[in-house]
């Protein structure tokens, strides 16, 4: 089995568990560092941490009553989130996120149809990169304003109201209700129309560009901000790299730094999702490694690229 096949297997299992596992009574908490959307309904086996972060970040609430469980619960969830994050880092994005898999399905469909992938030039990439931090700031800063009474309650969970996960993931539980336009007031109308536009436009982007949404994902930004805590990561041995650029081509996020880095071993960039595609594509023995703490999980080798470690000759050209 190749790493790509293993990743697909893990992604599908996690999709099934996170989307439908709740029906079997499975509850993995409310601190998952990926887009496991509770709006899916009772089937959701664990909730995206961003929803909890938005819902409970109100400082007024925290300071209201330190003896209340309502105060300590978010702290416990935050610690759980940090623990999960520290353990698997951005593998949550590359290996577990159900919304990531939905994007990968669209990519596989595009590949099957041999349709050209949209090219995001480095200049565009540079321009788009801050958006995820803006969204992260939005979802962190707006809720306290609601708690403080500066903004209306309608802005509660401001990101979820425009998150494509909320509209798309419930469709897998045959629930299209979040596609509806909410005309209760101007705020809801504006947010629901935004969500509808995002839901309509984003799949087009996701079809033509691999992992298109991840470019804007605030969870990716949050995980990267907390990068020093994670023990899973991508490292490079610069003296083993011949600069062939296979890593760059294989990268679903079009990361260029892994290819261009000539000195530092740390190549875990903000956009990296630890999918290990670059490690798989690298034919220089030992140049790239996906590392868990001090253990090498998977290291690049010509043997692997040549298909000698798995089914001969079938990996790179599926």
């Amino acid at each position: 089995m190749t790493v790509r096949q293993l990743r697909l297997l893990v992604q599908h299992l996690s999709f099934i568990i996170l989307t439908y596992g709740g029906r079997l009574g499975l509850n993995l908490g409310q601190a998952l560092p990926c887009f496991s959307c509770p709006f899916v309904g009772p089937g959701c086996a664990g909730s995206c941490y961003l929803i909890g972060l938005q819902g409970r970040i109100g400082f007024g609430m925290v300071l209201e009553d330190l003896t209340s469980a309502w105060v300590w619960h978010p702290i416990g969830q935050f610690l759980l989130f940090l623990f999960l994050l520290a353990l698997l880092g951005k593998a949550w994005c590359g290996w577990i996120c159900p919304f990531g898999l939905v994007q990968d399905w669209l990519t596989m469909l595009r590949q099957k149809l041999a349709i050209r992938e949209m090219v995001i030039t480095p200049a565009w990439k540079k321009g788009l990169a801050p958006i995820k931090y803006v969204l992260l700031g939005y979802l962190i800063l707006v809720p306290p304003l609601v708690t403080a009474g500066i903004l209306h309650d309608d802005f509660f969970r401001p990101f979820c109201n425009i998150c494509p996960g909320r509209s798309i993931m419930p469709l897998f539980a045959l629930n299209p209700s979040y596609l509806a336009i909410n005309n209760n007031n101007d705020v809801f109308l504006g947010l629901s129309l935004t969500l509808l536009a995002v839901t309509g436009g984003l799949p087009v982007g996701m079809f033509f560009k691999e992992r298109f949404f991840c470019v804007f994902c605030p969870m990716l930004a949050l995980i990267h901000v907390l990068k020093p805590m994670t023990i899973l990561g991508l490292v490079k041995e610069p003296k083993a790299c011949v600069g062939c650029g296979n890593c760059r081509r294989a990268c679903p996020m079009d990361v260029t730094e892994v290819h261009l880095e000539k000195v530092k071993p740390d190549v875990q960039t903000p956009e990296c999702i630890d999918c290990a595609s670059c490690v798989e594509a690298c034919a220089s023995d030992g140049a790239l490694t996906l590392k868990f703490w001090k253990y090498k999980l998977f290291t690049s080798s010509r043997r692997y690229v040549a298909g000698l470690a798995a089914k001969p000759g079938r990996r790179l050209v599926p």
Partner: protein
Amino acid sequence: MTMTASPNPADSRRSRLLGKVGQKDQSLHQQQIDQLRSRADFTPELDYFLQVMENPWPAAVSERTGRPLAAILCLQAPLELFQAFGWQPFKIYSGSYVTGRLAANDLPAIMCPMLRSALGAMQLQSGFLSSFRAWVLPTTCDWVVKFTEMMKISAGLAIEETSLHRLELPHLKDQDDSRERWLEEIYKLKKFLEKMTGRVLKPGKLREALETYQRAYAVLSRLTELRRQGAVPAVWFTSIANSFFYDTAENWTAAVARALPAFEGRPRPGAGGRVFLAGSPIFFPNFKLLELMEEAGLTVVADDLCSSERLFPGAVNISDHSEFGLLSALAERYHQGCLCPTFADNDRRVNNIINPAKREYFEGVVFQVLKGCHPYDLESFSLAGPLQAEGLKFLRLETDYTAEDSQNLLTRLEAYRHHLEA
């Protein structure tokens, strides 16, 4: 080999020279083949490669492959693209020192011996130019750039402009605009081949071609692994690699796969005398250095010659199955994945030597410079320092295709062997 009349029948002297050189070249060729067949480590599985090298001429290759031929001088032209159009890329034969005599007078005294040899060899073949439907010449080193001019001057051969395509190689690899320019060149090559073949490139055909070359890469990689263990003598590795251009990739891959078990079962030599061979390429029948190294007790376990381990890039990584995606992947592999010394930002080329050295496959580097091969000549000096800093013992040898310096080279190689053991 077919002898031809001189381009100028009135010139009987020229005609005599052609006859004499042709005869001598044929004899040298056969002598080398016989020598390889008589080696103790020859096995029947290796005979395929000798049979191919016995007759690497256009007519024979055309008949062997059943495909139209496209002449190339340099591996910078993406081979898979020819394959996708059903054509056979044919590397101009350039390993004989004898044929160089035919090109001696009208060319610089010190010039690339491979191209000198090629210029001579093409005069020995009747209808050489018409054997090829197309010529694809990348602008890699200066010699390759000026090759068509030298053909006119030295051999009186002019390629028709309509069948000639030049690939202008950007000599920077790490810059985005260079990558884009090279991709444009690959698109131009695609259009040229479409015009010449009268066919439109189908992504499915290109994918098939990539799969074919991926299979070739797999067997070459396995052979390389065995070589790292000292199980594949350099003369055999080079014979196998050299024969690649004179039969289809499919036949070659099958032949290598058949030959692999013969090497897998071979006793491995001791750890002493294991070296990396770098520098100018080595083409059949010029196995002088390989044989001398063997005689001196040195085992070549790795190389970065474009005639051997860098025979073709392989490992083309496909993430987009459209024509654009496939051509981009191919272009990048042939550009950024190439370690040719003609690139300006080639500083990471040294890692191709340091990395296997760290895995303790070898302790020394022999760098061959063919006189007149300027890019490698220059790079031999820039590589020496970084390699020595890594603790590798570095030997620079300057030679040519003639056998006159054999004894001198052997003495130096033997001394180097002692130096490695010290």
